Every structure is written in C-alpha cells, then in structure tokens.
C-alpha cells in the first residue's frame, strides 16, 4: 500500500483515541468529522459527565446565575464517538499503540490525541486540605459546592493566591457582599502573568472594592475542627474564615504519561507546531498529537520557544489544527500559530491580553488612563512589541496583535488621540518563575549515538506556595 492509500484507509477505517474529554478533546473530535474521518473515534475522560465549559465556574456559577451542571458545551455537530467517561487513562504503550485505563482496560489506537489539560493545584498539607470548607475550583462539582457555601453567607472567605482565578473568585465574593481576604505570596495580584505595573493597578482595584488584600505573605497553616475556622500567615497575623479557596494555579495532567517515553513533564507535553508530540529524546513522533492546556508548542514569533498556554481560545484552535494534521498527508500539515489571547472579568473590569507578556523586559502604557482604569499597555522585548494588555479597552487589542505579528518596534506610537500623559517604558519586572524551572528533569544514559537516550528524573514534591500566582 502506498502512503496515499494507507492514509485513505486510515481516514475510512482507522482508530483515533482522544484522551481528555473537555473543550480541546470535544472540538478536535468535531473537527475530525468535519475533515471527513469516518473511522472509529473514542473519547476518554476521567469525569463522569460530558464536556462542559470551565470559565463560568469561577464567575457566573458562583454568582448563582448559572447552575453548576448547566455549563455543558454546545456541540458543533454529531461526532458518532464512543465515550469512555468516568475513567482515567493511567498509561500509554507507545510501541504497542494502546492507552491503558485505570480500570485495567486497554484501548488500541492508530493515532492518538492527548488533551488531558490541567487540574487545580491542591493545598499541600493534606490534613488541612481535607478540612470542610477548603475548596479548589476546577471542576463543576468544585464550583457547585463552593457556590452552596457562598449562598449560606459565610462570615469571611479567604482566597489563597491572587492569580486570575483567585482574583475572579474574590470579585464574586465582593459582588455578593461577602467579606473576603486575599493572600498572595508575590508583591501584588496578577504579577506572575502581567508584571509589577499591572499588578499594582490590580491591587488598587481589589482594595477599592473592599478586598482585604495581603501581599508578600504566605498562608502557613489552616486551623479547624473538621471545619476550617482560622488561617495563619507568615507575618504572624491570623484571621477567622469559614471558607478557604485555594487558587494556586494548575498542574498539568501528565503523570499518566510518566513512563510512556513522551516528552511529558510538569510543563506539559512538548510538540512541534503541527501538534505532533516529541518523545523524551526530542524526536518528533508521527502518530501522537497534543492540544490544549497540556501542550507545549514552539511559536515562531517567540523565537520558537515552547509555550504552554492555559487559554480557552488556544485550546479550540489547537484542537482544530491537531485534528486536521491527524488525517492529512504530510504535505498538507497546518502549523498552530494563533496569537495567545486571554481574558478575565473581575471587579467590573474587563482585562484582556494578547501575546506573551511574561517574555517582556519592558512595559509602557500606550493608550487611555490608568487612573480611570481604562487603558492599554504594550509589552516590549528587546525593542519589539510582544504583548499587550487592556483594561476596559479590548477593542484595540487586534491592533496590537498586528503589531506583534509584524514585529513592530517598542514602544509603539499611540493610535488614538487619548494619548496618555506619560508613555515612558518601565521594566516589566516579572517575579522569578520558581516552579517553572524547579528541580531536575531529565538525565542522559548510554555512550554511543546509537544507544544514548534520555530518562526522566522524578522530581521532589513542591513546597507550599512555591508557585507563580
């Protein structure tokens, strides 16, 4: 059989398995059928329910507007798939082309798509994490339970971590009139994602809305008697809290791939821009693809660095590219080149970003007014625009996306008459990314080129709050 004929046969009768039945997995399945794939399609998901939308879980669900079980994703089309839900994948046999499930079953595939995403990082002290009233927010069950507690009108909520999720949850609490304390180990909210300048604006915003914001402190202990009652801080202070929300970011679901031979670690599964996974040695594989939050993909605009993005739009678009490439000949592969875009609603402000702010060395407000909390700031990296963030000024982001994609000089000129008084660039000032490069990762074995291979070093556990907010 020629490769053309074998692709044709695969498109007709092949077996595609998708591990991870959330946004990226569902959209990839739909795209595979759009592309004309008529073979067997299996979706594996560790949650028992069908794919649902996560962004409302820290917003509309907690305010009480949308029920927790009411965020199932609309379908773009029939996909005629076999659904294996409520069972996690536990291993991958690359040579034998089989996915192992936690219940012992083995699912064979011809081509595999990995979309296992991230889960919430849990509170590191297990006993404290088990106290009634301590939450994370990642699944719809998490969100539903937290919402019930907020409905009951707690005396105070403590949110640990002032990244986007933590800030949004604090915002909902204030919207509902619930007293809330936010504890953040960094100097300000959002600082890990957007840098010091935006962080200090976000801090003002929180305080203006009545948040008891405490930065530069760690939560050292959660105290309780079955139910959580009190939290202690590294500065010696303590507060009473009936509800504690742990918002310490995400952990990529790659443990099941640990011994598979793929380049899968705590930063995700590395792939080329065509979504083909790298094996642990850095070789691109032919039949294993990755998409969504769990993928690390090189971006030409960012010096071919491997980017891990936990963005809704990235998941959708990467799923589409992966699906296309899974059923197309090598001469018709698409690259995943979408410009990262992120949004967050908090304290009545629409925060939106485009590009990769964390790579920046400088930032400058380029439009609007920081005091009015309606502005755009551009991020520069060695003299070029590489990202932008807007506060209630999102309609200009497409302009900045074009500046990024055309490598425009930084600082850019203001495209409107509302030029800010001071456009001078200042250092971007991102905190040291402790977790991102934490600990050993791989070791090399063998001497001759024919035998030299890489193995993973199993890293130690993370220390409490040793993370980017």
């Amino acid at each position, binding site marked *: 059989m020629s490769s053309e004929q074998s692709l044709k046969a695969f498109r007709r009768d092949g077996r595609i398995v998708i591990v991870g039945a959330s946004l990226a997995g569902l959209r990839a399945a739909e795209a595979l059928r759009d592309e004309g794939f008529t073979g067997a399609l299996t979706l594996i998901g560790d949650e028992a329910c*069908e794919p*649902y*939308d996560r*962004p*409302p879980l820290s*917003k*509309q669900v907690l305010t009480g*507007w*949308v*029920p927790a079980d*009411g*965020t*199932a*994703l*609309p*379908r*773009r089309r*029939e996909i005629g798939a076999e659904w294996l839900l409520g069972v996690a994948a536990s291993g991958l046999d690359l040579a034998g082309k089989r996915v192992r499930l936690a219940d012992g079953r083995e699912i064979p595939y011809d081509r595999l798509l990995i979309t296992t995403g991230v889960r919430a990082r849990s509170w590191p002290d297990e006993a404290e994490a088990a106290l009634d009233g301590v939450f994370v927010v990642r699944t719809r069950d998490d969100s539903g339970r937290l919402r019930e507690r907020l409905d009951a009108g707690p005396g105070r909520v403590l949110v640990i971590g002032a990244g986007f999720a933590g800030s949004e949850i604090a915002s909902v609490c204030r919207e509902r009139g619930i007293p809330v304390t936010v504890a953040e180990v960094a100097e300000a909210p959002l600082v890990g994602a957007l840098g010091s300048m935006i962080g200090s604006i976000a801090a003002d915003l929180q305080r203006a809305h009545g948040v008891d914001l405490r930065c530069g402190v760690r939560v050292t202990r959660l105290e309780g008697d079955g139910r959580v009652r009190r939290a202690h801080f590294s500065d010696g202070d303590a507060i009473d809290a009936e509800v504690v929300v742990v918002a310490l970011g995400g952990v990529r679901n790659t443990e099941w791939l640990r011994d598979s031979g793929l380049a899968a670690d705590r930063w995700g599964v590395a792939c080329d821009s065509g979504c083909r996974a790298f094996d642990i040695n850095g070789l691109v594989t032919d039949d294993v693809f990755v998409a969504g939050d769990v993928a690390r993909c090189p971006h030409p605009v960012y010096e071919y660095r491997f980017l891990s993005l936990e*963005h*809704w*739009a990235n998941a*959708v678009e990467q799923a589409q590219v992966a699906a296309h490439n899974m059923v197309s000949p090598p001469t018709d592969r698409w690259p995943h080149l979408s410009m990262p*875009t*992120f*949004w967050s*609603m908090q304290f*009545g*402000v*629409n925060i*939106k970003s485009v590009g990769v702010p964390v790579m920046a060395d400088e930032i400058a407000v380029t439009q609007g007014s920081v005091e009015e909390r*309606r502005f755009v700031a551009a991020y520069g990296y060695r003299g070029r625009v590489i990202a932008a963030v807007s506060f*209630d*000024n*999102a*309609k200009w982001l497409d302009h900045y996306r074009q500046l990024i994609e055309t490598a425009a000089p930084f600082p850019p000129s203001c495209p409107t008459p509302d030029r800010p008084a001071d456009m001078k660039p200042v250092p971007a000032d991102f905190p040291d990314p402790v977790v991102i490069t934490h600990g050993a990762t791989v070791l090399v074995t063998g001497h001759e080129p024919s035998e030299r291979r890489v193995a993973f070093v199993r890293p130690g556990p993370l220390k409490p709050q040793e993370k980017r907010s």
Partner: protein
Amino acid sequence: MRVVVDLARCQGYAQCAFLAPDAFRMQGEEALAFHSSPDDAQRDQVLRAAAACPVQAILVETAEPS
C-alpha cells in the same frame, strides 16, 4: 439549550445583550457575561442574538446531542 461565547473574539458590541437580555449581560463597561444553559423559552431571542453578533462569537446548540 446550550450556549458558549468565544470571549477572546468578543469585542463587547453588546448586540446580544439588547436582543436576549436574559441570556447575555454586560458587566461593567465592556465585559460580557452569558448564561450557558438559557431556558428553551428564550430560544428565538438567543438565536437572534447569535446571528446578530458582529464577530460571530456565539455558539448555540438547540437540540440535545445523541
């Protein structure tokens, strides 16, 4: 019925909030909040809102999937 909005694409034109105010709400100056599972009684309003979105950011599914 099921709704999702691509908020990366949404530009805050607020057409949907005028046409289907029970399913789409503006929060603050330009942020959109949407109901993921609006009541079937709002079907026509929601479909009209989706059709009117200048950037086609709204995806609606009216029938339950098989």
